[in-house]
């Protein structure tokens, strides 16, 4: 069992982050401005924290080469070690990792063999990220995979390859710490979801939306809508004239149960049920609420401290 620990870490956007990630899959929900890239860089030992301590199995990755050798990372901006071609750059990186495989075999595995002879200087940022992700996933015995939005580099890499590689790493006992800025990506990556908002770590809690929506396709939408309108858990039912209803409620499970219950009672056939993705505004509002709650909690946790010592975080900066 490996453990990645952040102890009161402050670095760029991150503000006194304390968190523990154990072997398994973890997703940090947030954007680069929230500090997700900082988390990846610190976890991988690419950067040293300005304050606090980051340890992987009780050793600081930034200070211990032997730990970094078993860590793979994908950052927001990538660059290969200076070399003429991609294969030469991969050869350098593999040597640094102590990996005896050939660069060609690593590229072949990811379906990127056509890049082997490409000059490194001609690569675009998108290609560099795809190559860096392929290299990160090629690690045979990783302790930690720290990946910044790995599902945003899928135009050159197959999603099945990425998800299968992550799954293999988890099964081998590694910590897979990926970031995502969309709930949909977080769900595809799987694992424990934690939220970071403007540098404040909100913990492993998915923001609970005040309202969720379920799309129901049925041949008799009017009858079903009439029945659902009388159900207490359903906040609203929308029918646009087609065969689809949008049912709104507080939790997905409860409104799905009510839809099924109502359809059975009225003997109405349901052709499809689909969860409607929440709007970004709704998600942002929820995350802001969580951030406020975390701030309030911090105030309550430090009753003896001078109020002026409690920082207010906004846009990743400390105002007070």
């Amino acid at each position: 069992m490996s453990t990645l620990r952040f102890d009161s870490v402050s670095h760029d956007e991150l503000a006194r982050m304390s968190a523990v990630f154990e072997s398994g899959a973890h997703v940090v929900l947030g954007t680069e401005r929230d500090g997700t890239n900082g988390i990846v860089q610190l976890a991988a030992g690419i950067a040293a924290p300005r304050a606090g301590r980051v340890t992987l199995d009780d050793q600081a990755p930034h200070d211990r080469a032997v730990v970094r050798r078993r860590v793979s990372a994908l950052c927001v901006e990538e660059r290969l070690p200076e070399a003429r071609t991609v294969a030469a750059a991969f050869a350098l990186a593999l040597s640094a990792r102590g990996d005896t495989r050939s660069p060609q075999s690593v590229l072949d595995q990811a379906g990127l063999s056509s890049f082997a002879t490409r000059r490194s200087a001609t690569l675009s940022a998108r290609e560099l990220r795809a190559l860096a992700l392929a290299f990160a996933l090629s690690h045979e015995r990783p302790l930690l995979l720290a990946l910044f939005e790995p599902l945003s580099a899928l135009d050159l890499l197959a999603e099945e390859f990425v998800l299968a590689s992550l799954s293999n790493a988890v099964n081998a006992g590694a910590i897979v710490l990926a970031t995502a800025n969309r709930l949909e990506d977080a769900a595809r990556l799987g694992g424990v979801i934690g939220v970071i908002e403007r540098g404040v770590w909100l913990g492993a809690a998915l923001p609970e939306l005040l309202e969720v929506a379920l799309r129901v396709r049925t041949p008799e939408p009017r009858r079903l809508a009439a029945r659902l309108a009388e159900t207490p858990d359903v906040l609203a039912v929308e029918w646009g004239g087609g065969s689809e209803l949008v049912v709104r409620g507080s939790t997905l499970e409860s409104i799905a149960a009510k839809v099924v219950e109502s359809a059975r009672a009225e003997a109405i056939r349901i052709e499809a049920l689909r969860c409607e993705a929440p709007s970004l505004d709704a998600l942002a509002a929820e995350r802001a609420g969580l951030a406020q709650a975390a701030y309030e909690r911090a105030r309550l946790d430090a009753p003896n401290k001078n109020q002026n010592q409690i920082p207010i975080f906004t846009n990743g900066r400390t105002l007070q």
Partner: protein
Amino acid sequence: MNDVLLGMRLARERLRGFTPSFVFALSALGAYVFAVIERQGEAGSAADSALEGGVFGLLLPVLAYLLSERVCAASRLDRAVDPLARYGSDRRQALLGVFVVSALCTALVGGVLAAIALFGARAVSDSGFAADLRASVAIGIGVGASYALFFGAASLFGKRGGGRKWALILDFVLGAGSSLFAAPFPRGHARNLLGGAPVLELSQGGAGVALALIGFLCVALSLIRTPS
């Protein structure tokens, strides 16, 4: 050992390209032209002026600075090996590799520039030319290596290795003297080796030891200040 070699490969890759060769060629031409002009003015002291003023006074420190900037990828010395360290290389060992390439290249530059300046300042048929050439090239190699390590260690300071720039300025300003303040800088010792005013009344042998000590301390400081 593997990481030292990786550091050397990284540094070598950074020195590839047209610009370093072009700058060196331009400097060599400058050293030769300056020496020829000196020779036409006053042939007796042309070699001393060309070496002390042109090569060791201006060209070699500036070229060593530029070379150090290049091998460090215009960043701090400890960050210069990040492209390898992130994959597991030991920063200290990789940094040693960078130092080795940097010192070898600057030593070569120093030796070649010294030889070119001497060829411009004196006729090959002059008595004692071969001995002077050997001595000048040896001084060029030693001072070049010392400057490379000096600027390398200075690159550990500042957010982006700005200490390198300050080291160049301080070497010009303080290194020109002969007092205690000049002792930590290669300039005064190079001048001593060429027969100029010594720093702290050191002998020429002492100046050579001082240059070696500067290099050693710079490497030691760099290794101490850089995490694994």
